[in-house]
């Protein structure tokens, strides 16, 4: 299939997505919109974690920390001035955040940028560690960021958190950034940098021997990953309209990690699918614990049952799909047409093979 045709198809699909968003934004109720937004944010976070973990092979558990940085930066830059004065009662907010109010897009990008700067500072020393030691060290940094956020009330309002964050997040922002994230990371992986990252994943020593700078590439991948994590955090803050340090505990990182592994480590398509599955499943399991009445017999409300069911489902999925739903496969137009072709003419699919 020619490159122009693929580009045309992609453009078509994006326009179709735009029309869908336009329709969804006015027709879906707030509840469904919220789940869709949350799923799209998880997709951004998942795809960015997949870059450092799935494609570069570095076990990073620090996503929640970068999200926290992005979320706090974005929130502080978009909350209106009078709200800040109402929120920061115990200790006033320090300059320049106390007077600044920026457009959402600028605030988001600055949030991502701050997270990226932190990633460089953390990554330079820590990325020398390997395997599980790297995982626990990055998890440690994320927890340190959270504990610091808890202890600097003049910036973060401490454990009380920030309130009154303007709810700018809608499907345009979340899905738009999902597309942007996928585009950037896909281009990055297809470039020579991406090849270097995958070489590091497969074998660090061999990669170094053929002249791949380990530090440079690992830190670069970590930074790009953190940038998008920061943006995801900013979008999340504006979706929830209130944040506090507890929202960024290591459980948050685990959720993203589940999305990435269930989708298939090293598959962007899988991550996006898993992000939507994860959030829709969590929400549609809600009735289970709400208790219901069948007329002759009534079930009481049982808190916790939703997560019990969810975790059992998670165990079943991972035990029966040990490489994730998609493995390392990606969605391609070629693959789609081959698939349609096979359904149309099941007989001659073998002879055609890969064309």
């Amino acid at each position, binding site marked *: 299939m020619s490159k122009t045709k693929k580009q045309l198809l992609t453009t078509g699909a994006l326009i179709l997505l735009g029309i869908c968003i336009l329709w969804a934004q006015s027709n879906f109720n707030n509840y469904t919109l919220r789940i869709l937004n949350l799923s799209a944010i998880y997709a951004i976070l998942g795809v960015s974690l997949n870059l450092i973990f799935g494609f570069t092979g570095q076990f990073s558990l620090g996503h929640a920390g970068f999200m926290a940085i992005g979320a706090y930066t974005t929130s502080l830059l978009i909350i209106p001035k009078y709200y800040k004065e109402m929120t920061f009662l115990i200790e006033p907010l320090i300059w320049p955040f106390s007077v600044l109010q920026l457009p959402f897009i600028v605030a988001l990008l600055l949030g991502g940028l701050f997270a990226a700067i932190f990633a460089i500072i953390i990554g330079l*020393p*820590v990325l*020398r*560690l*390997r395997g*599980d*030691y790297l*995982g*626990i*060290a990055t*998890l*440690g*940094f994320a*927890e*340190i960021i959270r*504990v*610091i956020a*808890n*202890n600097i009330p003049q910036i973060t309002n401490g454990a009380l958190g920030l309130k009154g964050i303007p709810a700018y997040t809608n499907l345009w922002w979340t899905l738009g950034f999902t597309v942007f994230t996928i585009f950037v990371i896909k281009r990055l992986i297809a470039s020579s940098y991406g090849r270097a990252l995958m070489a590091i994943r497969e074998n660090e*020593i*061999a990669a170094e*021997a053929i002249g791949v700078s380990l530090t440079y590439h690992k830190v670069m991948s970590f930074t790009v990953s953190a940038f998008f994590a920061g943006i995801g955090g900013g979008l999340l803050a504006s979706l929830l309209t209130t944040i506090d340090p507890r929202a960024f505990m*290591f459980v948050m990182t*685990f959720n993203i*990690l*589940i999305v990435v*592994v*269930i989708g298939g*480590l090293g598959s962007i398509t899988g991550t996006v699918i898993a992000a939507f599955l994860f959030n829709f499943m969590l929400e549609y399991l809600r009735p289970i614990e709400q208790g219901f009445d069948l007329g002759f017999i009534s079930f009481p409300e*049982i*808190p*916790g*049952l*939703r*997560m*019990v069911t*969810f*975790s*059992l489902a*998670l*165990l079943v999925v*991972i*035990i029966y799909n*040990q*490489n*994730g739903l998609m493995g390392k496969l990606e969605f391609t137009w070629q693959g789609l047409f081959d698939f349609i072709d096979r359904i149309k003419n099941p007989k001659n699919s073998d002879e055609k093979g890969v064309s």
Partner: protein
Amino acid sequence: MDIFLQNLANGLSLGSLYALIAIGYTMVYGILRLINFAHGEIFMLGAYFLYYGVLIFNLPWWLSFIVAVILTAIAGMLTERFAYRPLRKAPRISILISAIGVSFFLQNAGIVVFSGVPKSFHRPAIFDHMFIFGNIRISSITFASIVISLIFLMGLLFIVYRTKTGLAMRAISTDIETARLMAVNVDQTISITFAIGSALAAVGGILWALKYPQIFPLMGMIPGLKAFIAAVLGGIGNIFGAMIGGFILGMAEILLVGFMPQLSGYRDAFAFLILIIILLFKPDGLMGKNVQEKV
């Protein structure tokens, strides 16, 4: 000096609890290369089993202690059998996700079965006694937790280094395939490893609940994480390392809070800070083997 000794005793007592839990992490990691994130929840189960043994079945303390430890050991074996064994050949990260799944499951099953409301843990009067040495006051629970932990740690070292099962464990952690060829019953040994690790976690959980007498289904999260830090600090996979890591961490936390109370808000971050600093200088932990990769 008195304050220092006082803090030292408290640090030893906290450290011995961390050591007990850290051993479960390190043994499982040594054998399966798995970070068992569900270990903190096993710790929680131990405390709840004792609570119900005493309160509902009216068992005497010593008996419900034994029953709780055995039940927790069985719970640990069951998690291995149903959540980790099917994934033995899977990529390592899949088992990790399975462990996170088990952790979520046990936490929320705890909320469903035990209810999310914290329960107060009545400790027997013997543990309220205070020993007074000059200006140092050591409660009997602080003392007991050190002694009981040491007894169990000795027992563990005996099993690992002086019995045939322990030999099998060490063989598997060196090379699982070769151990299988040498007629080591791998599945059974892994089960026993989980049982021992979980039993120690149960002892830790019970002592923890006696020390901080309030139990709730999420109580295992933070101690579990700290103990895991302790295991990594000492060099994960190494039993002595886990013990030393546990004591270092417990001591450091207590001393930080004792001498710099204005920093006590940073207590949870401090453990990680120590860990990261140590890892930067010794990337495999204090006692970990530095495995040189051959090309």
